[in-house]
């Protein structure tokens, strides 16, 4: 993989409002995204992901700092940059009274190549199983999302900027989307996508940046981030929780945060399940539920010093 930067962000800050109502949405962001990689931009809602994307697209103006895409300044050269990128907003709004075909034709004509782009749009729509003849107001949220993806990708841009791209898509279409991203990477193109869905990031990204409260906390490979993974385990007994189980679980190094509520025990666990299964075998287990941790929890575990303890 080439190490040339496609996106270069330096000290980028954004403050909304003024006076006492001032809110710092992004604080001195430094970030570099390399050509040919799929970069996951992660963080909880309100972390500053969309603000970063809107700054890169010159929809909003930075309070401080600068950024470049393809070596061009995001403000001075925004038109030339936009020619080479595709964008899917997190909250996609399109002209409600117009059909997918009409919107695709309009966007393609602004991009200056209706014939070539429309042909590729047809291919993408077929892969995503999108009916372009329907009016936007008649499309489900998932189908609107598909139309947004077609609009973002139909001119085969060198860089795709996608804000929560798979929200509302069914699992089959999500898989198709993941395949498309793999194809993009194989062609040496770059994808910058924001998400708060860990499994999606694990499936397609090379590196991730973790954003929290407007600050970039870390940039790591997906492999490293997900190595600290743990699970929340819920065990529901038919009868009462077996006597002494709580103490037994408290003494197990791979289990923490044990709480009991009636016939239910909840705990945080890493590693193999066998020790837990042996411990709970004294009671009649009605249900065992394993829950993937949220990205925030993994992040906290990774960066709050719990990493060694977890591993």
């Amino acid at each position, binding site marked *: 993989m080439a190490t040339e930067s496609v996106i270069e962000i330096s000290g980028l800050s954004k403050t909304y409002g003024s006076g006492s109502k001032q809110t710092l949405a992004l604080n001195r962001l430094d970030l570099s995204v390399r050509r040919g990689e799929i970069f996951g931009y992660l963080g909880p809602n309100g972390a500053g992901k969309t603000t970063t994307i*809107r700054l890169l697209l010159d*929809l*909003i*103006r930075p309070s401080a700092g600068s950024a470049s895409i393809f070596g061009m300044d995001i403000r001075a050269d925004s038109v030339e940059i*936009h020619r080479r*990128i595709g964008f899917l907003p997190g909250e*996609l*709004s399109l002209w409600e009274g117009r059909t997918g075909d009409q919107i695709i034709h309009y966007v393609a004509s*602004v991009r200056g190549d209706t014939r070539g782009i429309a042909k590729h749009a047809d291919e993408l729509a077929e892969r995503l199983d999108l009916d372009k003849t329907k009016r936007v107001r008649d499309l489900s949220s998932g189908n609107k999302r598909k139309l947004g993806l077609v609009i973002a990708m139909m001119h085969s841009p060198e860089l795709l900027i996608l804000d929560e791209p798979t929200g509302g898509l069914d699992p089959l279409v999500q898989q198709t989307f993941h395949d498309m991203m793999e194809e993009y990477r194989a062609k040496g193109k770059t994808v910058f996508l924001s998400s708060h869905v860990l499994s999606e990031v694990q499936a397609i990204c090379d590196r991730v940046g973790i954003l929290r409260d407007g600050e970039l906390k870390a940039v790591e490979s997906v492999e490293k981030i997900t190595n600290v993974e743990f699970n929340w385990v819920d065990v529901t007994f038919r009868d009462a929780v077996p006597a002494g189980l709580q103490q037994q679980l408290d003494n197990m190094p791979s289990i923490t945060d044990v709480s009991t509520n009636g016939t239910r025990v909840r705990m945080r666990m890493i590693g193999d399940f066998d020790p837990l299964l042996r411990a709970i075998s004294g009671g009649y287990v009605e249900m065992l539920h394993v829950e993937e941790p949220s990205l925030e929890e993994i992040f906290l575990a990774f960066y709050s010093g719990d990493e060694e303890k977890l591993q």
Partner: protein
Amino acid sequence: MSGIVIGNTLRTSWKQILYWGAGLGVLGLYIDFIAMSPDIISGYADLLKTMPPAVLQAFGASDIQLLTTAEGWIVSVFVSEAAIFLSVFAVMAGLNITANDEQSGVMDVILSLPISRAAYLLERWIGYALIGLGIVVLCALITLAGIIGMNVDAPHDVILKSILNMYPAALLVMTVTSLLATILRRRTVAIAVSAAFVVASYIFNAIGAAAGGAFADLMKSVSYFSYINGEAFVIGTYDPADSVIVLVAVLVGFALSLKMFVSRDIGV
């Protein structure tokens, strides 16, 4: 400037020319129909004579004798009523230039395309300016067709010019609304302030016309309604400088909205 946004604006909104143009044209036909009967318009003039001069002035009837002629009747009544309806269109068009797309979020998609903000605003403005022109021309043609079809004795060129003279003022209202939407950022607030601008202009014109003195003249001069003076074409006092003043105000308003739109955050 590629013209693609202009074309798209016309493609998506051309029906407004039909709806508004035909609607105003029907109003014109109705006024033509009344103008066919000299008894009705002279009766109307007699009714107006019973009102105090200041009240007459406030309603735009500066010369009652003028109202007894067909062209005076058509121009005074039609233009003063059509100008109000056209102002409503102009406010809606001004909002359509950027505010509606910005508030709905469509603007994020548009401005991620290879088109500058300035080019986009200019093309949208031209698109709606053309739609406004289409409306004025269509309503003028329908009104003229009524005059010809009903055999009303009124000079066609005077009627045509007085109706077309509404266009610069419509452009001004559209531009002011667009500017307000660019500054205020909220569609509802922009509607409220634009409506206040239209109503205030109407009141200023009415009071300015009714009252005498320097201050009243000033009030009248800042009202765009005072520049839609159809009677001036009938009595031959039309001054092209009046239209130039309105068009200069349009240019200044557009330049300000361009400056604001290019420099500020979008969708915030």
